[in-house]
């Protein structure tokens, strides 16, 4: 795996992380009936990092995005941050592993959906185990899954459109 961190790569990855952070912050301002019903547009930047560069780069971008995003939004080290971090980390891992194991079996959209569903499931489990032992939270499962599916599809679609542009300009060189 070619992971030489040339200045060009570092700059591009930094831009990915910055875009991811910006998207995360902007999305946090959009009102939703429940706080967790987000589309997760910041994941576009993670997905692009994964598809253009590779798993290590993607994990790096995700880590920076979650940290910087939480810092800006003001939720660093809060329960919200722990949830977002756990969900984000495991979903990024899941996406990277699936991509590594199955190659081109799933398109960007599929990988995105895998990521969003993992993210949501991890958050639900963490909330149940760590915060609210009430099995009532499991009632949210259908809603969470549906919104994860929708978000994953949207993010995947946006990423696939962007990837076509990126291919043309040879960003990965």
């Amino acid at each position: 795996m070619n992971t030489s961190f040339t200045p060009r790569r570092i700059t591009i990855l930094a831009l990915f992380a910055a875009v991811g952070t910006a998207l995360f912050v902007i999305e946090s301002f959009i009102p939703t009936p429940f706080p967790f019903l987000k589309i997760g547009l910041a994941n576009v930047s993670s997905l692009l990092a994964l598809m253009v560069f590779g798993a290590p780069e993607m994990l790096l971008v995700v880590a920076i995005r979650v940290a910087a995003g939480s810092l800006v939004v003001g939720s660093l080290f809060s329960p919200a941050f722990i949830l977002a971090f756990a969900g984000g980390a495991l979903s990024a891992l899941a996406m990277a592993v699936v991509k590594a194991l199955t190659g081109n079996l799933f398109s960007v959209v599929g990988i995105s959906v895998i990521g969003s569903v993992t993210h949501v499931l991890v958050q639900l489990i963490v909330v149940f185990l760590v915060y609210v032992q009430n099995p009532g939270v499991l009632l949210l499962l259908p809603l969470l899954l549906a919104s994860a599916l929708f978000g994953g599809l949207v993010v995947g679609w946006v990423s696939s459109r962007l990837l076509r542009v990126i291919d043309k300009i040879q960003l990965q060189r």
Partner: protein
Amino acid sequence: MMKQLTIADRILITVIMAAVLASFYAVASVGTHGATVFIEVNGKTVHKANLSEPHIIKITGARGELVVETRDGQVAVIHAECPNHICVRTGWRSRSGDVIVCVPNKTLVRVAGDLPEGVQAVTE
């Protein structure tokens, strides 16, 4: 986008949609199962009991006495001092939201679901 979806993508999306429906039905059926019963006289809750445990509860209504029994996840008014005994004839109730009413006695027997009332999931 529809053309770029691989077979694996389509299977994945179908599976998840199925999971959404399945979890929806699972949640909907759990939600209707009564677990506790509240007995209110004149608008005030005078007794609360667990439906799964066998209880015999004597309530003093506005007009006389009522006897409420809980057993096996159900509740019924088995005796009441009122003219028409509509409450007794209502029989056994088990679904959350069900009520047995004795109007002369101003008594309400209310079945509540599994979850503590007013639970709010706090997430960000």
